[in-house]
């Protein structure tokens, strides 16, 4: 793959402001009840030695996407030119097999029952900007975006998985 874009996330900089989540909804006119990007609060330890950690998670556009493998309709693909995981909604039957396969909770289902998720804003004609609004809006630059190597991409995915499993 010549080019692979991905998100990275620095948990030590996230303050759970939810700016990324609402920027996503507002710029993409997100349907109510559908959350392409989500901010999680993760507890660690017991009182009084208790802490909380944060995770901002959307579709990770995985190096090896489990959803694409699981989809019985072959509706999900990782694009060769940029690594973006795209869903062909005309093929989707809404069976939610992808949701079961995804460890990030990325696939969302709105009123039409078909899978929808973060497309990295690359497909959207309104967004002619270098990086998606979720990145632009982040006050502490905890959430970042860019081109990355396969190895780095996988490390980021594993870090988020570990965080979400706490």
């Amino acid at each position: 793959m010549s080019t692979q874009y991905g998100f990275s996330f620095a948990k030590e900089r996230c303050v759970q402001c939810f700016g990324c989540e609402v920027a996503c909804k507002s710029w993409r006119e997100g349907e109510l009840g559908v959350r392409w990007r989500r901010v999680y609060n993760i507890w660690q330890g017991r009182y009084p030695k208790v802490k909380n950690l944060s995770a901002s998670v959307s579709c990770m556009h995985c190096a090896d996407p489990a959803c694409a493998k699981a989809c019985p309709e072959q509706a999900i693909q990782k694009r060769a030119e940029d690594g973006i995981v795209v869903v062909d909604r005309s093929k989707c039957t809404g069976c939610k097999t992808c949701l079961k396969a995804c460890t990030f909770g990325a696939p969302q289902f709105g009123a039409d029952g078909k899978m929808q998720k973060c497309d990295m804003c690359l497909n959207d004609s309104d967004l002619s900007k270098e990086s998606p609004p979720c990145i632009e809006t982040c006050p502490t630059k905890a959430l970042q975006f860019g081109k990355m190597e396969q190895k780095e991409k996988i490390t980021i995915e594993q870090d988020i998985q570990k965080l979400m499993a706490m």
Partner: protein
Amino acid sequence: MGEKKNQWLLDRRAFLKATGAGMAGAAIGAFPFESFTLDEAMAVAAKADETAVPTLCAMCGPAANCGVYAFTKNGRFTKVAGMKESPANNGSLCPKGQASPQWVYSRERLKYPLKRVGKKGEGKFQKITWNEAIEIIADTLKRQKQKYGPESLGMLSPARRTYSEYLYRFLIAHGSPNYGHSGICVMQRAFAFMYTLGDWPRIVDYGKSDVILIWGRQPIYSGPAQEGVRAYVNAKARGAKIIAIKPTVEPDVGLADEWVPIRPGTDAALALAMLNVVVNENLIDKAFVEQWCYGYDQLKEHVQKYPPTWAEKITGIPSEQITEIARIYATTKQAGIDTGNGLEHTPSSNDAFRAIAILIAITGHLDRPGGNLLGPPLSKMPRPKSVHLTERYTQEWVDKLVYPEFPKPFQPFVEGTSSAYYGMLESVLTEKPYPMRTIIAPGSQALVSTRGSKRVVEALKKLEFYVVVDVARTADMPYADIVIPTSTPYEMDHPFEIRGNWIMARNRVIQPLGDYKSIYEFLCDLGVKMGYGADFWGGSMEASMNDQLKPLGMTIDELRKHPTGIKYEPVPRTYETYEKVFKRKSPRISGAPFLPQGKVAIYNTSFKEAGFPPLPEWKEPPESITGTPELTKKYPLILSDYHTSSVYTASWQRDVPYLREILPYPTVHIHPDTASERGIKNGDWVRIESPHGWIKVKAELYPGIRPDTVMVLHGWWQGCKELGFKDLPLLDGGANVNIMYSVDREKAFDPLVTAMASQTLVQVRKV
């Protein structure tokens, strides 16, 4: 769709790739994907047949004003992006800002003026014109002024906005000192610090501190896109030790090195015990104390009453931990204390801040690198002319205050003369010393903004004339005689705003959605109708802004030619400015300095002369585990509340669907052990009962809270139709936490600064 546009984007990315930019994991700051500049915003808008208007955000306060680009399509406000050129937010934006179009187009917006036709509280109104509304208000005010005196008019303060100064101007032109300030926000802190240190050293030198105590402060929930959060996160990244003192673990605590879970409302006890440690272990800056402090010997004797073992019982913090924090702070050369609004909600509020101010001073952390700095950052910007008619204050004026927020010998304070918000409402019921006859509520809702909602309802029923001025329906609106709808700041081209060294003109994004004007124009129109036209620029906001801008040598039109405003050159900070600051004059009528001895007022002779204790003391909240142990059998848990949250500003914005989705229900934070003892599971509806009322909220099992404490979020009342949420009851059975607290005049108020308690004892049961 949009093949061509995608191509442009890919070209852009190819360009970045070719220049070696765009690597993920690159150092922060070097990352090339920055937010919108004016040119980028214009280019993005043009490609989608949209317009991008540079303006200022309006979704939180007080006076936050992040720079934004507001996008419109076919005259409709569609979305926003942070403005890279704005030093306030540096291109970033919070969820409230991102959701602003939904706030502007909310179904709750008021579109035309209303006149009450039913009984008070019934909510029956008739549509009237703007001019009719102005006329009715002016007639009423003129009649009441003649019969009862101008002081019978009061204004309920909003969270501070630029229009606060215009509210003062109207009151002063009319002749009333009764600006009803909340009594729970900012001024309580400012008062204690200024009368102890001559200034409020609110700025911690974050870039240089090795230890930071973040004490009852929440840097994220209000203005997360601003410098406070960046400073906090960067200090952490630099390796500063952060100690968070607050009852629960919030996201900022997650980034801290140590959490000190204090019982709500007991900060004064902790601060006094820290003074005890510092004094007895002689961890002071001896030279500073000798040269710049007044009354250290009295303090030394006074704090013997407050050893850490004493404070442990009250605060719930182990005495060893108290001693350790005091030592770390006192012995670290570059250390700061960032205090917050959490300390302003208790009868010992003033004591807490005074004790902390003394702690900062005697340990040598005042106005030194890494410590608490005196004065705001300075720049070469000339100060615009004030719209506050300060020069008209007299002693007679002060004597007319209906319920002084600060004692009369200390009025006016920095924002002007003020009565306590709640006290002003209560005067309607007590008629002591006289009742308010008209109250105007601009951007404020008494039924959820202040404590004692049950008393407030009675006051609103009895009040002769109540005017609600707001962009959207408020909780109090059914009690209004006249409702004045106003523009959101996205529908107006005024005022200009200043933040630090940056000044920018506000630009209109869309035309008003109904028969209304801005709150500034409301005050100008009413001023003219009242015969105060000379004080209201003949009703012209353009004339008002031009008048204010004279010292800057420009007009508003000239300022507007700078679409992203003007940044003035900053003046480098100097440290140890004691000589100058300790002589500062207070805003009192006498102009006497804040510090009579020209030194830090450890022993406060100004307070002593006015009949208040000269040294900080401890005062229990009206109901507490150590103050009223007899209540703990029936009510074993402490209740307090969060003032604001990541997605809501105080008591508004519950009607904004994109925000409501994130925090849909009123919840109580309860420790999992405390919950399981009561058979309560996550998501259960629970009834919380105090000696004063009960609320119904959902349980959120929250590992990061003291097991003896539960916390709810303040400000719940409003529904959200899009998501199927109805309004909640304002009194018992709803989720309005204000009904839960004592409003006993003797017990619930700080005697010096009228701070109101937001602590009580409760029981929690599954519904």
